[in-house]
Structures are given as structure tokens and as C-alpha cells.
């Protein structure tokens, strides 16, 4: 057996172990349920509000968008975990192990995307009972949902890893929240993007959250709902193009940034961070 294959297999089992840990642990379970439940409450209040004169219900429009947002949040999770793991020395252990970094990264991709699927299910299953006006019969919608989700993860997880390498402490990770919230606000998640000023639309289309939301809406809404989108179309080609471009960018940049970050790790850098963190507490 060749060592790279062994490392990939070890990474896979690492991911599954971590996924199991996160699903059998009180604090983590709370985090898994917190956002989906909050979003379900939002949906509950939006379910009877209609969008302008289109006849579409905001609740139905928001459900797939929120799904898209959830998927994009994998980026934030990835980034936070990477920073935390660097701070506490998990990454250094990986570095001290043959092919450990490869195994570590595969493990993270497995556990983060696995956790994400769980989050998506926690939200989607009750939401389907709450909201009417979706088109979810037959395999078509689920097929679209799957490719958008898969491509979305490939587009966002490497970006998350890049962000995680840039921030050096869990504290500075907090800085990331604000721009992410701003991006969500302009991405047509809670209100159709076509109703926003055109320059805001252009900014939003530069980021993957918008495209994930659009792809999800195209999967779960009836075809006529495309009327409230930009160009009154689902723009599948553009979705694949935009997410694909982010994916290529992420996959090109992430290994370089990660390698550079890993190169700097040593016992004393971890000890330094430990001291800084303990001073903060003590």
C-alpha cells in the first residue's frame, strides 16, 4: 500500500471520528441546532408574507436561500477550526507525523462537510413541513441540490482554509464575522436580490454565497419563481462557472498558504500562543 493512500484513508477515518465526537457532545450539539432552529423561527414568521406583487411567498423564497447560506457557512467553520487547531498544537502534531498534514486536511474536509450536511438536514426536514409553494417532487430538484451543494463545498472549504491560515488567533477570527454578515445581507438570502440597487447586486455576484443561494432556489422553487431573479433566469451555467472559478482559485491558493503556515509551526510558536492565551484568562 502506498503511504499517500494510507494517509488519505487515515484522514477519512479521522474525519469520521471527529464527526462522531461533534455529534455526541453537548456543546457541539447546541451549535449544530442553534442556527437551524433560529432560521426555522425566521421562516415561521416569513411564511405568510408575499414578495411585492409577484405572488411568491417570502418564506418559500427564503428557505432555499438559507440552505445556500448554511452551505457557505462551512467556510467560516473551516476557518475557525483551522485557527483553533493551530493555536492549540493540533496542527503541529499533524506536522510531526508522516503525511500528517494531508491526513489532517482530508479529515477536516470530511468532518466539516459531514457536520454541514447534518446542519442542512436539521433545517431542511422541518422546514419542508412549514413552508408551502416549493417544488420538491421527483428526483430533479434533489439532483440539482446535490451538485450545487457539492460544487459549493469545493468552492468554499478551501477558501475557509485560506482564511484560517491568515488569522493567527481565535480572537482575531471574530473580525471575520462582520464581513460575512454583510455578505449574507446583500446576497439575496432573506430578500430577493433583484430588489436591491444594481451596484450592490454586482458586489453580491462576486461572492459564492449568492450563487449557492441561487442554485438552491433553482433546485427547490418552481420554474416560474425565476421571474424574481436577476435576468429572470436560474443561470445554471453562470452558477457552475462562478462556483467553479472560486473552487479553482481556492484549490490553487490553499495548498500554498497552508504549506507556508505549516512551515512556521514549531513547539515554541505553540508555547508562545499558549502563554498569550493563558495570560488573557488569568
Amino acid at each position: 500500500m502506498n503511504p499517500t493512500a494510507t494517509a488519505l484513508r487515515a484522514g477519512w477515518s479521522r474525519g469520521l471520528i471527529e464527526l462522531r465526537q461533534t455529534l455526541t457532545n453537548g456543546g457541539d450539539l447546541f451549535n449544530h441546532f442553534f442556527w437551524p432552529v433560529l432560521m426555522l423561527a425566521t421562516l415561521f414568521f416569513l411564511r405568510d408574507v408575499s414578495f411585492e406583487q409577484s405572488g411568491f411567498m417570502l418564506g418559500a423564497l427564503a428557505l432555499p436561500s438559507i440552505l445556500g447560506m448554511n452551505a457557505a457557512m462551512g467556510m467560516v467553520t473551516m476557518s475557525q477550526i483551522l485557527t483553533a487547531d493551530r493555536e492549540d498544537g493540533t496542527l503541529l502534531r499533524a506536522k510531526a507525523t508522516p503525511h500528517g498534514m494531508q491526513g489532517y486536511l482530508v479529515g477536516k474536509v470530511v468532518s466539516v462537510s459531514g457536520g454541514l450536511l447534518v446542519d442542512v438536514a436539521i433545517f431542511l426536514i422541518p422546514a419542508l413541513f412549514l413552508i408551502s409553494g416549493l417544488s420538491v417532487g421527483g428526483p430533479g430538484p434533489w439532483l440539482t441540490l446535490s451538485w450545487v451543494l457539492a460544487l459549493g463545498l469545493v468552492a468554499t472549504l478551501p477558501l475557509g482554509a485560506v482564511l484560517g491560515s491568515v488569522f493567527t488567533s481565535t480572537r482575531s477570527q471574530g473580525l471575520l464575522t462582520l464581513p460575512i454578515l454583510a455578505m449574507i445581507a446583500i446576497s439575496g438570502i432573506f430578500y430577493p436580490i433583484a430588489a436591491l440597487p444594481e451596484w450592490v447586486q454586482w458586489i453580491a455576484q462576486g461572492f459564492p454565497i449568492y450563487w449557492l443561494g441561487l442554485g438552491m432556489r433553482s433546485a427547490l422553487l418552481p420554474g416560474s419563481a425565476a421571474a424574481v431573479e436577476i435576468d429572470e433566469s436560474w443561470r445554471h451555467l453562470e452558477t457552475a462557472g462562478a462556483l467553479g472559478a472560486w473552487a479553482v482559485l481556492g484549490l490553487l491558493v490553499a495548498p500554498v498558504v497552508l504549506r507556508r503556515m505549516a512551515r512556521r509551526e514549531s513547539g515554541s510558536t505553540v508555547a508562545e500562543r499558549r502563554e498569550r492565551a493563558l495570560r488573557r484568562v488569568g
Partner: protein
Amino acid sequence: MTTSETVVLDIDGLRMRYGSVDVLHDVTFQVRHGEVVALLGPNGAGKTTTIEILEGFRARSAGRVEVLGADPAHGDEPWRARVGVVLQSWRDHGKWRVRELLAHLGSYYADYSTERITRPWAADTLIAAVGLTEHANKKIRMLSGGQRRRLDVAIGLVGRPELVFLDEPGSGLDPVARREFHDLVQGLADEGETTILLTTHDLNEAENLADRILVLNHGRIVADGTAAELAQRIAGEDQVRWTRDGQHFRHSTTESTAFAFDLFQQYGAAIENLEIRRASLEDTYLSLVHRAESGRYEAAHVNKAEEEVAR
């Protein structure tokens, strides 16, 4: 060539410079197969920098470094599989269970077995070897400080390394845990198959664990030898104390027996309360570090040992 003659670590003219500050000047030493060597020095002497360069975790400024026949700055994965690094854990892998983590980390080494060495170490055997059997199913964050350090050693050993690095192994442990930890390292050393390089600022730790001690001070190796050789070679002064006519005297000398003989010849029975304290390794170490420092800062420093302090 027998294995005991194999040079595992070969460091020649190692230098490290951060900005305009030289942390290591010309560090040169060798370590042979099966040796346990301590890099001893005060804080800030450059011990951690040295060991991190050898671990391949830090790039050096200049010099030749060979670890298991390869330059650690370009150590590949098969090289990494032969090296064990005992890291000081803090809160990493807190949700993992002891056996789970060791079995997982061990799996990366499975393809690196050789005819002589089967890799990895089976998790349960290893857990027993470090005395964690009753905690094998505990979550790591529930372990005590001493138990965590033993787990750190287990993680460093899981790939059955030919060479192990230990940075400040005893620090942060209470005396009982420290003794257990030392026994563990000694047990490993006694098998003679593993070469160990450890850093410490604690002389007793170096004396307890190492076959050979390298004293590092201000980025230079100022002494190299066994504990006994060091005590002999850099003869620390014995302390001689006595009273005569109700006055107290003290004298430092390397020839304490001869000095006492002279005293009696000169004053006979007037000498009372004679006390001779032999130079301990600690005195040797302190005078070494002191000498290196005074050589550095005060070239015209008068050697303290020449002074006689009366009263």
C-alpha cells in the same frame, strides 16, 4: 560498522540569526546511535532553537546539519517516519480518547516498517508501557498534567522512532509525575535502540537521564561530556571553611586536601571546625555558565576563585 558507531546527529557550524541578533554561533556536535544526550543551558541559551532546527520545524541561517543522514530542512515523509517528537500538549485533541488517538496517529506509520522495526507500536502495548492502561478510554481533556505528558511521550513514540526529541521534558510537572516521567524515559533509553536528544535547564534532570551532557550558553557549546567528566574537566572549586582564634575563614580551591594539609602545618591545633565541601556538578555548571558569561562581557574579569574571602 556496528550500529553503535553510526552517527545519528551530525551538526557542524550551526548558526541562527534573528534579524541582527545571533542566537546560535557555531554549534557543533555529534550524537551516536543509542546515546541519550542532554542539551543543558540557562533560559535563552538557544536550546529550543537548536532542537527545533534538528526537528525540521525551523530553518537555520547557516551550517551543516544531518539528522539520520538527511538535512531536516528538507526531510521527506519517510525521514519524518523515523523521527519522534515529544511535544508539550496543551488542549489539543481534547475530545479524543487516549487509545483512539494513539491508534489513529499510529496508522500513518504502517507503511514505514523495515526488516528490523515494525511500525507502528500497537496502541495497547504502548499505553501499557507509559502506564495509562486504566485511562485508555478516557477523553484526553480529562487527564491530569502528568498523564498528559505520558501521553505526549506515547505519541512521540507511536511510530517506533529511531531518534526522539524531547524539549524540556520535566517542566511543569510535580515531583511525583516528574519522577515517573524520568523513569519512562530511562526505560526507553535502557533498551539502547533509541537515540534521544533532550533539552533542559535543570542540571539534575540532565544528570538523571543523559549519558552525555552538552552545555549550551549564549548560543555556543561550552562543554561536552559525561556528568563525571564535566565535574572533573572543568574543576569547580571545593569550599574549605574553618575557624582560628574565633575568626571564620573561607577559601575556594581545586586542591582542597593539600590546602587543609598546609593549614594544619602552619597553625596546627589552632584550626577548628574544618569543613570541606566538594564541588558538585551544580557548582561546575554554574561556574561554566558564569565563565562563559564573564568571558563574553568582561574580558579582564578577575577569576573569583583566586580571591580569598576572610571573615
